[in-house]
């Protein structure tokens, strides 16, 4: 199988909420110096899903990573290579900045058409900055291929079809899809593997292919902010009241008892 995994570089979503600041004038967040960029965690799990297929037959399966952005940190975008992916394509240009899911999917679709041969595309179910969750499904629509979202398992079965378990509110669906197809991956898939030292060494020697908008047949005016379909009216940080009544007493057990009484007095229980 020729597999493509779309990976986004994001600011670490595990960063403490107290570090979060907005640049409201430019409708984006400010990068605090202590918060580092990482591969979007769901995208790492998408890489893991592809690697689990590749593990079955290393020679017969190939994984190409595509990342889009500007000034991408090489150590971050190369992480999937160090986990075991084969190639890395970067759509990297200032013109790619400021896009919404529609703009991003348009550029990815153009790049994937240029790559040509593919059987499976994996994406994370959503990225951790805008939490939009539209790129995977939208990309499939643009490429005219089927999509299955929020998968916790994907395996190649007889006849070249792919069997997918898709998480639902009260369980999961088991689907079978013909290729080419796109699958978005959820955290239920399980943790992504660590990069091995050997993998890191191999990745350091690989040079990514870098494509500008013109390389994928798009004008600079047809990507990034210029290609947005959704317009931001306002970006703001809701004010939190932060009036927590901390119940304290001589011992934790007494505090617990006092808490129960307070809840009773306030008719909460």
């Amino acid at each position, binding site marked *: 199988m020729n597999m493509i995994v779309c990976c986004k570089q994001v600011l670490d979503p595990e960063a403490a*909420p107290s570090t979060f600041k907005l640049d409201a004038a430019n409708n984006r967040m400010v990068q605090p110096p202590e918060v580092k960029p990482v591969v979007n965690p769901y995208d790492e799990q998408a890489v893991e899903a592809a690697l689990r297929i590749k593990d079955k037959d290393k020679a017969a399966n190939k994984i190409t990573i595509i990342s889009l952005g500007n000034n991408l940190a090489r150590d971050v975008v190369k992480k999937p290579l160090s986990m075991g992916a084969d190639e890395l394509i970067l759509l990297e240009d200032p013109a790619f900045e400021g896009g919404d899911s529609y703009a991003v999917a348009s550029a990815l679709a153009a790049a994937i058409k240029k790559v040509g041969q593919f059987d499976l595309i994996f994406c994370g179910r959503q990225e951790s900055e805008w*939490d*939009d969750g539209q790129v995977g499904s939208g990309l499939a629509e643009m490429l005219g291929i089927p999509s299955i979202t929020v998968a916790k398992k994907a395996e190649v079965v007889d006849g070249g079809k792919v069997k997918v378990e898709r998480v639902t509110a009260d369980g999961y669906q088991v689907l079978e899809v013909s290729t080419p197809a796109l699958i978005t991956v959820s955290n239920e898939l399980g943790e992504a593997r660590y990069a091995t030292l050997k993998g890191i060494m191999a990745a350091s020697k690989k040079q990514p292919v870098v494509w500008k908008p013109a390389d994928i047949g798009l004008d600079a005016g047809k990507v990034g902010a210029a290609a947005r379909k959704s317009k931001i009216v306002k*970006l*703001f940080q809701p004010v939190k009241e932060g*009036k927590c009544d901390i119940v304290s007493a001589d011992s934790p057990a007494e505090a*617990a*008892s006092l808490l129960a009484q307070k809840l009773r007095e306030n008719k909460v*229980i």
Partner: protein
Amino acid sequence: MADNKGILVVGEVAEGKLLPITSEVLGAGRRLADELKEQVTCILIGEKMGDAGKAAVAAGADKVLVADDAQLKDYENGTYMQVMDKAVAEVAPRIILMGQTSNGRDLAPRLAFKLGVSAVMDCLELAIDPATKFMHCTRPVYGGNAKAIFTAEALPQIATVRVKASSPIAPDAGRAGEVVAFAVALDAAKIKAKVLETVKEEVAGIKVEDAAVVIGGGRGVGGPEPFQKELAELAKVLKGAVGASRPPCDNKWVPDSIQIGLTGKIIAPELYIAVAISGSSQHMSGCSGAKCIVAINKDPEANIFKEARFGVVGDWKVIVPAFTAKVKELVQ
């Protein structure tokens, strides 16, 4: 698409009953339609949908299209998209709304991109800009640390509405409305994925998303046992359900189906007791609708105390049993 008018709500039905989220979306659609002085059409896609059409009228629809077909029994986007293609062409709506459910979050982007627009996902509030008649959609971004208001410059506008974020109208069985069958000739060649099986992972007792009281456990609980023991015991006394933040689910201490958060269940109980949960933005997105949040955490700096109304700083292993004992005494 300058002539597009009205609101199209994509409803969901399970076992012949309209889902609560559909009533919530119909409520949101009704309010927008009243402001625009336009109509609400609801499309129900599935099989054996009973009186769900009438229920959709009572919940605010002016017209209900019922696409009832054995091939629509299970959700699969290649099949459902064919119904939506025809519905959108016939209704030509200004706005298309659906719930942020496993189906809605899958269908909305495919439909939007096919129509050359972008959807706004997981909205908390919807409003009409009186000057332009375009919808303004408010949704959480940056893991719930901020909110953004989105709009568009082309029709139709598509949005999904977060579970429990919008209030339904009071159901009115006397509301006038039309329920019609909506037949679609499904093209098998366009269906590339086939549902082999639907697996339900039943959770014993009341569901976390339906409970009036929820006891949530976090990473700090330390393992699977406390969810069965101390937290379950407290839940039992308060007639509530046990939930969890993401780490206990990722560690397989508890089933994924009780995960509370942005990508898990959205809850809005009367009381949420967060035990050893730090209060990441992702988790808070799932429980900020709770009327009262109580935090028990050993770290006084934990983010959860910024969101809670009551809190105790200390070891949950001591606090929870003592709290449970006192609650038992008070409520009996």
